[in-house]
């Protein structure tokens, strides 16, 4: 895994795990690897993983059973909310980036439409 070193690594790992949940690569209620195992696999500091686990739990994405481990939420509703939040983040970044380039909203929509048409052809 290559990280973008210009953004906090724990946030990138959180997003990675959230994406896996949204895409169904990880099932609801499934047990996560331990933070140490994650740290080893991703080659990051164990403290970074502890932070990831704490933050995921605080956001309600995961929950901990004492002495058993950390599990993915069982709520489908939560996954839907997560999906919306992540999509909104992407859209917000897109709009911000386009505004920095001097695009107005109509130009943006036009550009997206023409891009989507091209994708559809391929």
């Amino acid at each position, binding site marked *: 895994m290559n*990280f973008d070193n*210009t953004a906090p690594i724990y946030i990138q790992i959180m997003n990675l795990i959230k994406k896996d949940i949204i895409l169904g690569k990880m099932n609801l209620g499934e047990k996560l690897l331990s933070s140490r195992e994650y740290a080893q696999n991703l080659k990051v*500091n*164990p*403290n*970074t993983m502890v932070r990831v686990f704490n933050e995921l739990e605080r956001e309600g994405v995961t929950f901990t059973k004492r002495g058993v481990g950390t599990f993915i939420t069982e709520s489908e509703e939560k996954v839907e909310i997560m999906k919306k939040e992540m999509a909104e983040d992407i859209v917000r970044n897109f709009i911000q980036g386009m505004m920095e380039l001097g695009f107005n909203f109509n130009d943006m929509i036009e550009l997206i439409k023409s891009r989507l048409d091209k994708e559809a052809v391929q």
Partner: protein
Amino acid sequence: MTSVLIAENVSKGFFRNKALHNLDLKIEEGKVYGLLGPNGSGKTTFFKIAAGLFKPTSGRMTVMGYPIGAETKKLTAFMPTDDFLFGWMKIDGILSFYTDMYEDFDRNKALEYLTFMELQENMKVSSLSTGMKARLKLAVTMARKARLYLLDEPLNGIDPISREKIVKMIMGAFRDDCAVIISSHLVSELETILDEVIFLDHGTVVLAGDAEKFRLEKSCSIEALYKEVYHG
């Protein structure tokens, strides 16, 4: 949180040169620190004082509450940049040497690390390549159960594969009851493993703090921050 090392107002002069100048630093348990700065910023001098090899000209330094001395040397594992292992020894000889020298040396751990580093006990030290020597140095240093690890430029002059192994091994050996300080100017290799960064310049701390916090607040990598700090 327990402080492993505390430096208060530490200065060290070599004749007219000031290598360290009123340095204040607190190193806490359970964290990996990056001691960053260009050549001549005082990184090695700091390590040598912490390891008990130099006496500071003024100021105070303690490890686990003890003033630097025989007691702290037991708690501190220092890996210098020099090629300090005896060339005429075989690796198993080095292991016996470490077993005799350090109470906290764990031979089984060392063997485990050697396997990971793809080194064999019957290899002669003088026949090892630069990368292999660097791996060996690190393996025997981390096989001590110290409270403070001081790694001076573990990545300098090392090929990418050895660098990756070295970074992986440091992370594998890291425990909650110790602190690791890694000095380097190869910042990008360390990005993912540092909890805290300390920038030294002309023997004093110019900037220090949580690596993730810097990324969040400045939206830049530690490497970019490094360039910002030293380009002025």
